[in-house]
């Protein structure tokens, strides 16, 4: 069990490096935030002070988070590929730490996006939350899942020449189970579902995260060492 620890340690070095660069350029984060805020404001304006059904708002939250993630998450790999730093990184690091580092970076970006977007979402769309704790847990696990599955897809996209919107096309079928579950759980947390129902949704989200990260770890070396 020494090896996973070493993976995490090297992964943290990559995570730190990516954050350092992100703080200096703010490219990824601003792309995500602009997308999310534009969508939210548009919808809020269209609804105009009324409160939409829980079914709609729950789906809306995840549509915004999904498409924001798609707008920004490929960036971290594409930048390495475009600037040629990918060769330097490949010579120095094993594939698994690279996956972990990029995954942690994407998690950080998406969580800070959620921290900004979710309060805005609650304020702009006039939402009252029946089960606040469950709601937070759903947002956290859902965001982790978005990052977990799309990180390896982002690597695939960067190797495929970073074609426009390829990430969205590839990610949607893979993320669909996550989105369906997260939307049902959000609906339950917002609209007063049964606590047991929310709990099993949360477990499903947790296991989905596990599958996404473990499968990515297993497959990442084939993408990284093409």
């Amino acid at each position, binding site marked *: 069990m020494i*090896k996973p620890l070493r993976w995490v340690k090297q992964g943290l070095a990559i995570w730190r490096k990516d954050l350092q660069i992100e703080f200096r350029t703010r490219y990824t984060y601003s792309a995500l935030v602009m997308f999310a805020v534009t969508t939210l404001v548009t919808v809020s304006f269209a609804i105009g002070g009324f409160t939409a059904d*829980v*079914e709609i708002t729950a789906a809306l939250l995840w549509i915004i988070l999904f498409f924001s993630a798609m707008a920004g998450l490929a960036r971290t790999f594409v930048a390495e590929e475009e600037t040629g730093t990918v060769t330097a990184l490949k010579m120095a690091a094993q*594939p*698994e730490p690279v996956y972990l580092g990029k995954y942690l970076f994407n998690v950080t970006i998406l969580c800070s996006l959620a921290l900004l977007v979710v309060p805005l979402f609650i304020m702009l769309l006039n939402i009252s939350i029946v089960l606040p704790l469950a709601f937070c847990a759903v947002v956290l696990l859902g965001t982790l899942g978005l990052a977990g599955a799309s990180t390896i897809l982002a690597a695939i996209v960067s190797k495929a020449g970073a074609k426009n919107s390829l990430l969205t096309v590839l990610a949607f079928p893979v993320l669909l*189970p996550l989105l*369906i*579950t997260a939307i*049902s*759980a959000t*609906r339950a947390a917002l*609209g*007063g*579902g*049964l606590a047991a*129902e929310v709990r*099993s*949704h949360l*477990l*499903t989200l*947790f*296991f*989905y995260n*596990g*599958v996404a990260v*473990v*499968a990515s*770890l*297993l497959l990442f*070396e084939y993408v990284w060492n093409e």
Partner: protein
Amino acid sequence: MKKYDKVVLVLLLLVFGVGIFMTARNALSTYVTFAEAKATTRAVQVKGSAVAGTLEELDDDRYVFLMEDSNGEVVRVVAGGQAPDNLFEAESVVAKGKYDGEDFLAQNILVKCPSKYEAEEHPAEVQK
């Protein structure tokens, strides 16, 4: 990655996969009983069967029938549109909607066809 690491990861993958399988079964099971439907204000799906001969037309585009859920509770269901032809032959009936006072107000009635892949019984064949 060494073979050992791969085996460990594949086992972990299986554990999580089984986890999804077990919990998704609960999480996505959207049927409730009338008792549970009463407890929430959300739209739900109640599964049961229609009680034969209880169909009544309220007006041009509404009808009422009695429906029995898996606990044996019988509730009046009010639905819009035309009643499906095979409402009483159906294996099961699903009412989507919510409670309105004592009645269950259904937005939609779904009917599951009986799935017996057996020949249609003609009198001649029955005798054989």
